[in-house]
């Protein structure tokens, strides 16, 4: 395995998912693509809230990047706007990810992701 797509969302279970993905990537010497998606309802909020959502997403990604760097894990950061499920499916194909990792408490509909994805999906508790 060479590429893991890690779905990043601000939930209590996210640190476990990040830790699991980085350990796996280190063990298998593979690259992580960390993806945060700004959801479509964000622009409908007041501008400052939408802006804060993006800043928060970037800070989560850079926290993960810093951890990855300390562990010698190669990582690329991706930030997209739109439907999270669709972005995850599209980007897993375009970056040829062989595994998708998400937190079990993410706000995606897990069954939909598993049903629509052509890649294996791991939900980490």
């Amino acid at each position: 395995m060479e590429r893991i797509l890690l779905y990043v969302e601000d939930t209590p279970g996210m640190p476990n998912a990040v830790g699991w993905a980085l350990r796996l990537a280190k063990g298998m010497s593979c690259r992580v693509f960390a993806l945060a998606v700004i959801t479509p309802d964000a622009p409908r909020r007041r501008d400052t809230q939408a802006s804060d959502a993006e800043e928060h997403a970037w800070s989560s990604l850079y926290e993960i990047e810093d951890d990855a760097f300390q562990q010698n894990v190669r990582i690329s950061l991706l930030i997209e706007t739109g439907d999270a499920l669709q972005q995850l499916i599209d980007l897993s194909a375009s970056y040829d990810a062989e595994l998708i990792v998400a937190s079990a408490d993410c706000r995606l509909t897990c069954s939909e992701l598993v049903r629509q994805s052509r890649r294996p999906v791991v939900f980490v508790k």
Partner: protein
Amino acid sequence: MAKISELLPRSAILLNLRSKEKFEVINELVGPLVATGSITEESEFVSAIARRENMESTGIGLGVAIPHARTKAVANTVLAFGRSDSGVDFNSLDGKPSHLIFLIAAPEEQKTEYIMTLARLSKLLRKDEVRIGLNKAGSPDDVVRVIVQHES
């Protein structure tokens, strides 16, 4: 927490980068920060930046790259900015050269400020009007003005 515009000394704004290659550009941007005393150990800092660049891409796409490092070789969080008309290959995921290059240097112990600076700068540079403004800027003062105008 300091704003981006407050972390960018005018002496570290280079509107016509001479270098064409990634590590040469990084060295060019490091120079003014050594001169201001923000980077205390140049070779250690350049090694830290190089280690990250060899592991991952700091090109975030849209013609922007943000090489960065947090190390003991830095006295205070600081930025340098360089603009390259021809563009520099920072291995961006979109495959395009980087024309706007922001270098971030932070002390080892200032992780929160480092992460927040990266996040704020990345958010800022995703705005079309900021990139257009930086591409058009005719002086370091213009660069700072563009950033101040769009910084929340």
